[in-house]
């Protein structure tokens, strides 16, 4: 037994690593720039503050680090590609790299554009100082040049570049005095790039090793400022700007409450039903019950939920229960005790509980029925009958124990669903639990929260499999000895 558990625990470690890897992969491949969400451009009055905020968060999130311990790249790709924070510029860079395979000259080309932009900015401030009265007139032309430079920076397509260069030239020519010759330098560097193509480099693999200073390591194990996933730190929620766990922890309680209560209810109701059905499966009433259970089992939970709301929380039909939320509008009375709070909340809980319970109810009763019926023709049941036990005693004392094994599996699936919550039921009844939080996080692109929920629920599932396996081995010696 001990050996079995140890073996299972040892297998747990690599799967744990894989699960975190999956979570991290999702986090990294999430679209959009996290900095744009953490530091909205509009909210900052000062460009300097905006830049420093971005730099701060970039450092915090480790965006200036390589993604993983190793990377497989093409020979042409430079080591420092991940340092280009601007997504559009990076795309253009990669595109150009694919066309030419010469990282040095591509970098030189982008440097040239950057220098031009700097020169342009200098020129702009100079104009403003020297000819303040002419400045408004030429501002639009100068801005056209700026726009050209920017679009040149983010375009990797060669025909597009030529068009943009032509436009830049025209805009420069329209300038009122001696044109600053940005276009010539850029065109020259582009020509050089086209002349020195080394496209074969795109087809040679290169494996580089980054060591411990990478984002995955930082995310998983943490460093000075963060504790890392392994110690329960999933980073910072983009919308709340709080640690993810703090955001989640308030929500778990409701999901926990509903999952546990509903599964206990489902077991309490469905095991007796299952036993009854197994005893006499062919009486008319039991057939009807079976058909009803089958129908319940096939009813999607969102249809059931909306139907319940439509029937029992609808002023047009029956308005017995409130349609949404979990407590009265305006909160509880201040001096209400726990019992009163429960009583206040009770009408809000009825419909969600029915919804949570009914699908697992039909599933568990069918499971109980079939697994008891599998036991009934076996020899030990015949022996028990031969001893003169009544039908009920045979099932209760002998068959039920042996048919409980599949029910362990069902019970072990409850705990993971606490973290995932029931996305659908919670969003129908607006219960502030994990499910609703997940939907909110996905809609508002709050990826750390999403990833935390997925990773945690993976971990919990693995744990519950472990517990179920140990329970199995404890309940059934055959499993223990086989392995």
């Amino acid at each position, binding site marked *: 037994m001990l050996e079995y558990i140890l073996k299972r625990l040892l297998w747990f470690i690599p799967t744990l690593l894989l699960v975190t890897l999956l979570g991290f992969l*999702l986090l990294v491949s999430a679209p959009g720039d996290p900095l744009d969400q953490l530091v909205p451009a509009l909210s900052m009055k000062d460009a300097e503050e905006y830049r420093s905020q971005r730099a701060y968060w970039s450092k915090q999130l480790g965006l200036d680090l390589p993604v993983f311990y190793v990377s497989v790249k*093409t020979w042409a790709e430079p080591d420092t590609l991940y340092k280009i924070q601007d997504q559009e510029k990076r795309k253009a860079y*990669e*595109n150009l790299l694919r066309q030419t395979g010469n990282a040095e000259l591509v970098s030189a080309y982008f440097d040239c554009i950057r220098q031009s932009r700097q020169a342009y900015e200098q020129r702009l401030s100079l104009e403003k100082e020297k000819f303040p009265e002419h400045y408004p007139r030429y501002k639009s032309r100068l801005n056209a040049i700026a726009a050209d430079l920017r679009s040149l920076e983010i375009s990797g397509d060669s025909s597009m570049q030529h068009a943009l260069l032509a436009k830049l030239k025209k805009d420069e020519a329209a300038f009122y005095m001696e044109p600053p010759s940005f276009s010539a330098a850029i065109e020259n560097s582009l020509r050089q790039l086209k002349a020195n193509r080394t496209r074969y480099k795109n087809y040679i693999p290169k494996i580089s090793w980054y060591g411990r200073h990478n984002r995955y390591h930082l995310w998983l194990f943490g460093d000075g400022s963060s504790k890392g996933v392994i110690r329960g730190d999933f980073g910072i929620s983009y919308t709340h700007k709080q640690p993810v766990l703090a955001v989640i922890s308030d929500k778990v309680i409701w999901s926990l409450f509903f999952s546990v209560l509903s599964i206990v209810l489902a077991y309490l109701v469905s095991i007796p039903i299952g036993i009854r059905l197994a005893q006499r499966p062919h009486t008319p009433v039991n057939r009807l019950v079976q058909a009803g259970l089958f129908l319940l089992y096939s009813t*999607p939970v969102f249809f059931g939920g909306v139907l319940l709301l439509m029937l029992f929380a609808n002023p047009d039909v029956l308005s017995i229960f409130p349609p949404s939320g979990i407590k009265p509008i305006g909160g509880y009375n201040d001096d209400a005790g726990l019992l009163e709070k429960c009583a206040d909340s009770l009408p809000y809980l009825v419909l969600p509980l029915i919804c949570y319970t009914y699908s697992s109810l039909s599933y568990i009763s069918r499971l109980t029925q079939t697994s008891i019926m599998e036991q009934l023709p076996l020899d030990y049941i015949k022996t028990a009958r031969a001893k003169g036990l009544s039908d009920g005693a045979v099932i209760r004392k002998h068959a039920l124990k042996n048919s409980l094994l599949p029910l362990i599996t069902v019970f072990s699936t409850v705990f*993971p669903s606490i973290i*995932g919550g029931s*996305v659908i039921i919670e969003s129908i009844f607006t219960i502030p639990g994990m499910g609703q939080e997940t939907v909110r996080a996905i809609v508002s692109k709050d990826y750390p929260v999403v990833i935390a929920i997925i990773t945690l629920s993976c971990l919990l*599932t693995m744990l519950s499999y472990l517990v179920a396996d140990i329970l199995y081995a404890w309940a059934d010696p055959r499993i223990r000895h086989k392995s």
Partner: protein
Amino acid sequence: MKGSHTYRNIRPALAKHKSLKRCLRALVFLVIIALLAPVLANDKPLVCRYQNTWLFPALSWKRTVVAGDTSLNYNMGKDWKYLDADIILFPPCAWSPTTLDADNAPRKSPFDKQWFSLGHGNTAPLPLAYRHWLGTTQNGQDVLSILIHGTAIAIGIGFASMLIAALIGVSLGAFAGYFSNNGLRLGPLQILALLAGIFFTYFYCCVIRGYKLAEAFNDGGIWLILRLLFLCYVALKTIGGMVWIAGYMERKLRIPYRFRFPLDTLVSKSIELLNSVPSLLLIIALSAFARPSYSLLIIIMGLLSWTIIARITRAEYLKAKNLEYVIAAKALGMKNRRILFRHILPNVMPLILTQLVFGMGSAVLAEASLSFLGIGIPLESASWGSLLNEGRDHFSSWWLVVFPGACLCLLMLLYNKTATELSGFRNS
């Protein structure tokens, strides 16, 4: 016909199983509805005679057509009903899911009076041929039409995702069960070739051409699945070919060493890992990453749901490999591939089919849940779940909840019943 004898006994066996036969008939009926959806519910007429030209707009993919001396826009939506044609015959439901009928706009009940505007502010009662038999949505879309076209989505997604799941699950499960951990032995060169093959296919597909892959995923489209399947096929063939060449070289060079390839452990552990992934959450999260499309949904669901099929196939192959007919086939010197897919597969087919049908049910459910939540599906889509989603905000409009819900219930019932019957089919 080679191999057809294995399935020769199906017809007489089906004749005995009346209820299974009924279920299959119902499924076929639904598939026919799904296939005929453009003819059953469309705002373009089936047949139309306009300016002495016969037109068949519902069956045409064209955008415009020249009839007589005018050019007709085929996608004119409701305007077809105002067309001054000699003969015009509409489908049984004269609306497309996307057509907006402004005259009956905010949620007309099936029993309400429905209107048809004649221009200049005049309205008349809607002719019976154009009636919204099951009411309209907030924007005036026809519910019946959405239901009919939604059938294609619901069934198509189930079939396609389970096709992917079956391809992966059956092959992995069969190999894992049949060879288990010590059936496959590889020489050192072969292991090298395997690793190199995996590395280079990864390098080519995901690094050199990675941008193409990303583009394809963002595009969605029907071809994405076929392209990916073809890509996987070529990749596997390449790796297989490299391993084969390595084996040939080993035989020539007489290298005696062989290592056991722990296929069973690999497959079992990946099943365990994938089973622990919360699939609905992952689908929602992933579809928030890329541009939502049905192809993406199908691929994700296929990739997440092969595990159950693989587990069952593996268990059955594990049992079957020690049975007499397999040993006999081996003794006759048959190739592994023939034994695996010609001899064992037909015997475990009913069990796999049971799981596939259950899986189709859960795929339908997943799609409906997503469209109910409004996440991860294309915006313009008209499926059963999206109707329910609208209905949940407007309780007074019962027809937005009851009809799609009943359809979903019926489809789930059908799938569950078929699966149950199929498992009984195997036992007898």
